[in-house]
Structures are given as C-alpha cells and as structure tokens.
C-alpha cells in the first residue's frame, strides 16, 4: 500500500478551510482522527462560514484522512449541525464511505425539538417553593400510610384482615431471634462503655460501687431500648424497605392488590406487629446483657465483688424504669416497622430507587426514634416519673 508508511506514524489531524471561486467554502481534512491527538478547533471554521456573505455550500474533502473513529464522525456531525443552523448545505461526497453512512443514519430521524429537558436552575424562591411542596406531599403520604396501617390494624383486631398469623411468626423469627447475636454484642459493649464512663468519675470519690446503679438505670430506662431500636432500624427496617421496594418493582404488590388482597394488611401489618412484639423482649435481653457488661468492668477493672455489684444493681432496679424502657421499645418497634414499610411502598420503579428507599428507611427510623425518645423524656419529666 502506498500510504502504509503514513499509517505507521500517526499524523496530527488538520482541518483547513478556504473560500473557492465558486462561492463555496472548501474544508480539507487530513491526518489521523483517532482521538490520539487533540482535534482541531471548530470555532474558526464556523466563524468563517457564518461571516456574510455566506458561502453557497460547504464542501468537505476528507481524501487526506488516514485512520478515523467516532471522534471524526462526531466532528463532522457537529459541523453539519451548525451549518444547518446557518442554512448552508454540506456536501459529503468526498468523505469516507463509512463516515457518510453514519452521518446519514444519524440524520435519518430529525431531532425531536421538545425532547430536550431544560436544566435551568430555579431561583431561590422557586426552589424553596418546590422543596416546601415536596415536603408537604411527603408528609401527606406519611399520614396517608399511617391511616391505612391503622385501618388494617383495626380490621386485624376485629378478625377481618387478610393477615396470616404464620407470616407474623416468620417475621418475628427474622427480626427477633435472628438478631440476638448482634443485640448481644452491642448491648454488652454499651454496658461496658457506661461502666467506664461512670468509673472515671466515681473512682475519685471512692464510690466505684455506684457504677452498678449507673449502668442499671441507664440500660433499663434508656439505652437498652434505644440501642435495640437503632440495631433494628439498620437491620430490619432496611430489610423491610428493600424487600417491599423490590416487590413493588417486580409488580408483586400490584399482583396482590388486583387480587383483592390489601398489601398493607398482607405485607405491612405482619412486619409491624412482629417488630412491636419482639422489641420489648429484645429490650429486656439487651438490659440483661448491658448489666452483665457493667458487672464485667466492675469486677475486672474496679475490683467490686460480683455479689456486691449484684446487690447494688438490685437496689437500683425499679419497676418504673424497667416498664418505661419496655414500653418505649414497643413504640420504637412500631416506628421502625412503619418507616421501613412506608419507604418500601413509596419506592419508585428502578433498582436505584430500592437503594434510595432503604437508605431513607434507616434515616427516617433513626430520626423518629430520637424524636420519640426526646418527647418521652419531656413527658416523663412533666409527669415526674
């Protein structure tokens, strides 16, 4: 081949234009258009073409072009689009056959002018307004779902709901028994942390024994329920949202509703009920493990005799602290289940929407848990318990 040598050493791509005597504008293209070199600027050529008097047509001559790929086709297509805007015809006879065919293919369907989405940024107030409307919609959806769930619960109590008890037990197994290892670990460590925190100060007064009171009251009243709830939010709430979200994507939820089975009764109620029933039990378990963690620190680090620690714990134990913790756990359970199911049902129709629903379920659960904890502290303080 004559130009074999030229192909071996890639040449820089060039585009040079000049007006011909016939009133046309000839652009001669040469070199290798493979993206290895920066492409020549289109701007000066377009300036020349648009400058009046405008050329009658643009003649592209690519006989000097060696290797080319899509970057060359893109360049020509861009050039041609601009020429169309200037109402100048483009002659493509001297382009490589493949390029001419690709350009013809791209031209086959005219641009849908209303298809381009405008990405214009909203002004401050428009943005604020949109956000506000979205927040109101989200709140409306939340209360809507709360209503549906309440109605479903009412029907369940009166025995008319299509909720299967077997499903409730299955969910209890999944969110309760299967969560024991992680609840054990976290609760024990929380007990240890509480004991350490107290020990530093109490030891200075020679009152190490009161670590037992601190750990017992802390675990029973707040930390047992709170830590279990946070674990449930990350473990079970997320799994509810992911599962219901994928069921929504796969139209499984539609299949239920068109069969006359309420998805809320069939899918959400068992999950929320299971969490509401298992959370108090997990909370008691967590209390025990936390106290064990405190006792471990007490005996190993603070040299409090286990028997003394036990007695101190028992004297700090009050039924009201214990009950407050357990009731709070049940409430947190409902909140986590509610948030998980809500976000799962709201899920859009794609796999990325499932990921978003899962994240959103965890965030919503944790926010609701902390808010509920704050409200309960306020109310209990008012009541004086």
């Amino acid at each position, binding site marked *: 081949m004559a130009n074999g040598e030229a192909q071996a050493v890639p040449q820089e791509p060039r585009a040079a234009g000049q007006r011909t005597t016939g009133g046309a504008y000839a652009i001669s293209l040469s070199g290798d258009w493979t993206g290895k070199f920066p492409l020549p600027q289109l701007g000066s050529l377009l300036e020349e073409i648009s400058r009046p008097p405008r050329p009658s047509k643009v003649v592209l001559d690519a006989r000097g072009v060696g290797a080319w790929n899509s970057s060359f086709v893109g360049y020509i297509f861009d050039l041609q689009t601009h020429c169309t805007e200037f109402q100048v015809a483009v002659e493509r006879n001297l382009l490589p056959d493949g390029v001419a065919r690709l350009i013809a293919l791209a031209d086959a369907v005219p641009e849908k002018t209303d298809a381009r989405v405008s990405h214009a940024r909203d002004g401050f107030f428009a943005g604020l307004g949109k956000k506000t409307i979205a927040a109101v919609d989200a709140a409306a959806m939340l209360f809507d779902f709360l209503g549906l769930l309440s109605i479903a619960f009412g029907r369940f109590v009166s025995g008319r709901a*299509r909720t299967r008890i077997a499903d409730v037990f299955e969910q209890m197994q999944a969110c309760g028994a299967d969560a024991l290892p992680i609840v054990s670990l976290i609760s024990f460590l929380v007990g240890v942390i509480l004991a350490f925190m107290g020990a530093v100060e109490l030891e200075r007064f020679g009152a190490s024994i009161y670590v037992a009171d601190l750990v017992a009251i802390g675990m029973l009243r707040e930390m047992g329920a709170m830590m279990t709830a946070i674990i449930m939010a990350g473990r079970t709430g997320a799994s509810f949202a992911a599962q219901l979200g994928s069921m929504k994507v796969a*139209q499984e939820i539609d*299949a239920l509703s068109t069969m*006359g089975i309420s998805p809320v009764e069939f899918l959400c109620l068992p999950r929320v009920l299971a969490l509401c029933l298992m959370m108090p039990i997990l909370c008691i378990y967590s209390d025990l493990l936390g106290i064990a963690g405190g006792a471990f620190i007490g005996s190993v680090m603070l040299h409090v005799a286990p028997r003394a620690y036990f007695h101190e714990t028992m004297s700090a134990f009050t039924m009201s602290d214990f009950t407050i913790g357990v009731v709070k756990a049940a409430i947190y359970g409902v909140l986590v289940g509610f948030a998980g199911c809500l976000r799962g049902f709201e899920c859009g129709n794609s796999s990325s929407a499932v990921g978003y629903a899962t994240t959103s379920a965890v965030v919503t659960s944790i926010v609701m848990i902390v808010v509920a904890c704050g409200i309960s502290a306020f109310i209990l303080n008012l009541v004086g318990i």
Partner: protein
Amino acid sequence: MAEQTPAPRERDSHIRVRNLTIAFGSYVLMHDVSFDVHRGDIFVIMGGSGCGKSTLLRTMVGLKEPAKGDIYYGDFNFTAATEEQRGAFLRRSCGISYQGGALWSSMTLAENVALPLTEFSGYSAAEIRRQVSLKLALVGLRGFEDYYPSQISGGMQKRAALARAMALDPEILFFDEPSAGLDPISSYRLDRLILELRHSLQATVMIVTHELPSIFAIANNGIMLDAETRTMIAQGDPKVLAATSKDPKVIEFLNRGQERTQRHA
C-alpha cells in the same frame, strides 16, 4: 352505592371502554379511547413502545385512575365503583398476568397459586392442593410445586403466573406483554396455551403486546394506540386491519415498517 348508572348497552359486549383519558398530572398520555370487547374475544392492545399500552391495562384493572371516561364490565361500572367493590369484582372475575410474571418471590409456585384459593375460595386444604396441581399441570409445570420463582426460567415464570391468574377461574384474563423476553418457541407455546385456555374456560382475553407473530396467531379483535396523536388509531381484527387499513401508521406497524406485503392478502 348499589345503584349504578346503566350504560349504553350493546349486544354481548363484555367490556366497554368509553371516552377514556389517561394522564400523568398535566401530561395527557391518551385521550378519548373507546372500544368494545365481546365475550370470548382475544383482544390485543397494540402499539409501539411508549404509547401507553400497559398503562391502559393498568387503568382497566384499577391500578391507575383515569382522568376521564368510564370502563364497564358487563353492567358493572368499574370507574364509579368503590375500592371494595372493585376488589371483589377483580378477584371474582379477573386474572392478571404481569409483564415480569410478578410471582411472589418469597413463596413457592404452589403457594403462589394457592394464595387466592386459600383467601377466597373456601375450599379445604386437600381440595386446594388438588386445584394447585391441576392448574400447574395445565400450564405444563407438573412437579414444580415446591420450586421458588427464582429457580425457574423466565418462560416458566410466565406460565406459573398464568396458573396463578387462572386460580379462581376468571371470566377475563389480562396479559401484559406475555411474550416479552421469551424465545420464539416459548413464545409460540404460550400463544397456543392462551388459545387453548380461552377455548376451554370460555374466557375473554385482553393482551397488551407488540409481537406481530402473536398478534396474527391469536387475536380476533384489538385496537392500536399511537404515541404521536395520543389516542387509538384503529380498531378491529388485526389480520383484517393489516390487509385493508388505509392508515399508513397501521400499515407500517402491522407490516414491520414495510409497505403492505402479499403475506396477508
């Protein structure tokens, strides 16, 4: 509300759709769609991608509210009915097979088919087992009772979904893209199965599809939707439409983008 406004009645039409307009917010997807489906028809909703075929089907089974218009099943005004009346009607009279099968993934095939039976039929457990075996055998899935949907192929999932849709012996079967994603042979078998079941169950069948071989093989009535004009552009037997329609869009669709060929002459 037991009283329902009586609809204009035509002879033996099973489903009547009148002036249906479907919109997403202010975006009108289709307007003024009216058609009749006769008892025993295999009725196809045809049209290119994005023209709203599936949305029309979703509207017909109450998964989406129409912006305007009415849908009648016999004398039952579906659009004016309450949620409860719709639910009762759907489970009594309709079976729906979704695009991806939509089998409940946490249940075995047997449990999928059994759920509508246990919830609504009042049969004994033994009778339900027998019914489940029968329905699975009818779609060629005998012995697959204890498989989960994820363990079987796409074609088998669609057939299992059909078995579930037939569980309560519906009068109307809806199919959303039954042959989407199936190889030609599975698709052909599914078509045969739909024909066979329509014949033996005396059901009316509504199918959303754009598969020409299916359309010509099984349908005897249908409408074509158009994304550009956002309404229906043809109604009738697809074979007749292919041969006699004057509308270039209908001719192009039914002849795979070609001019009319001798195939349907």
